[in-house]
């Protein structure tokens, strides 16, 4: 099976004297669903940041979607980011854009045609049950609704990999369930690789998943 992420002897740090992830080795199969758990400050989010190139590896090698991220050039990083979808705990929506335009962002960056873009956005708005809010601005929506917009944006361009950082951390049950269903749906129907960083794996999640736990800078698969 193809590997979408390959980490070899990977170390991550924000400064030279404080290594957060220490010489870890792991790989993620394409089309798998993966949970990364760990205590607060264990390095879960740091690992996720390195996967979308916001943090350069201090040591070792990290290959995502065939792109080596250690010392990666801007053009290669942009190429990779065009093919991944990211969901953040704080949503990261553009405040001065309507939710429709926010969802459209990856499609515009990837140069999709206007007709395709409009159809895709329309379909996603229905999926996240926000069709009636299309023209609103993010700050006019609740936290749960904003996260649904962020989820729709992450799915809009059919990415090969979805990275989600505590996607249901502050959400109501309804929005949380919708987010999990969308993630599972993308994984099962589109064979998108999904990696979720979370404190707790939902008990009722209906998907075969792999579970990695981060502790003391090391990453271990949990059986």
């Amino acid at each position, binding site marked *: 099976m193809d590997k979408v992420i390959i980490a070899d002897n990977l170390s991550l740090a*924000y400064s030279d004297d404080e290594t957060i992830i220490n010489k870890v080795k792991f790989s993620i199969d394409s089309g798998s669903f993966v949970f990364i758990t760990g205590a607060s400050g264990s390095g879960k989010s740091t690992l996720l*940041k390195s996967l979308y190139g916001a943090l350069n590896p201090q040591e070792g090698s990290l290959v995502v979607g065939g792109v080596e991220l250690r010392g990666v050039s*801007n053009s290669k990083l*942009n190429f*990779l980011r065009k093919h991944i979808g990211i969901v953040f705990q704080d949503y*990261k929506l553009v405040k001065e854009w309507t939710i429709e335009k926010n969802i459209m962002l990856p499609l515009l960056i990837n140069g999709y045609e206007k007709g395709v873009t409009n159809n895709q956005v329309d379909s996603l708005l229905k999926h996240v049950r926000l069709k009636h809010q299309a023209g609103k*601005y993010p700050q006019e929506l609740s936290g749960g609704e904003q996260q649904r917009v962020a989820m729709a*944006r992450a799915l809009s361009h059919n990415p090969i990999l979805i990275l989600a950082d505590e996607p249901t951390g502050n959400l109501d049950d309804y929005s949380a369930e919708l987010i999990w269903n969308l993630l599972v749906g993308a994984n099962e129907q589109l064979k998108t690789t999904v990696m979720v960083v979370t404190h707790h794996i939902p008990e009722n999640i209906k998907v075969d998943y792999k579970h990695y736990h981060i502790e003391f800078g090391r990453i271990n698969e949990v059986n």
Partner: protein
Amino acid sequence: MKSIKNHLSLVIALVSILFSIQILVIAERSIDTYKEKLANDYSIIVVSQKNLDASNLMQENAIIGKITSLSPDDVIKRLNTGMSKKNIELLKLTLPKFYNIKLKYYPSSSEIKMLTRKLLRKSSISKIENFSHSHDSTYKLLLLFKKVITIFSVSMLVVTMLLIFKELKIWQFKHNERMNIMGLFGAPLWMRSAILFRLSIVDAIIASFVSFILFTYIASDSWVNEQFEYIGIQVKIFDPLSDLLLLTTVSIIVSIVLALFIILGHKEEV
């Protein structure tokens, strides 16, 4: 409403800059027109023992616009106490020649001194009246007016620029956030910056348009025109073609420079 708010802060700052620039242009134009008027009213009287070669003098002194010979008839009329026609003709020949010299433009004090010195070097020229005292006071008043206007406009420009630099941090924060989010989805720098440049150019055009309306109104205001009439000049307060072109160019350059500042100050979020 939200979109108006997004544009307002930069548009106001740009209008303020354009206003200062146009005031400087009007001051410069008024002074030039006034100088022209003064030049028309101003002349130098030259007394020569022989006839002067006007074209030669004009060639030697580029500042000279016109030389006219003054008729001695008035002087002779006052002296004429029963002189014969023959004696009058004789007197005419012995009287010095008077010339009125008009200049091409209103000269500075040093230019007058230099011209006087050059003319006096001619052996035939015995006396020159350049009315330097009244010229000096008018010229100094003109310079003072120009300085006051320049100081006022430059101060306005400096204050506006300081305000813009203060606002720049807010703009930087606002655009940084959007640029970071776009970057997370793989937008290249040109695409992240394109929105900013488009906004800047739109704001620059809005500011130019507002200035156009403002100065078109001022130019048509009767009170403003009366003030110029009082000093006997007619000044084009706003040229809808050349001035609008100048203001739009300045406006676009300033807003593009500001956009570049924001882009250069953009930091990727980690």
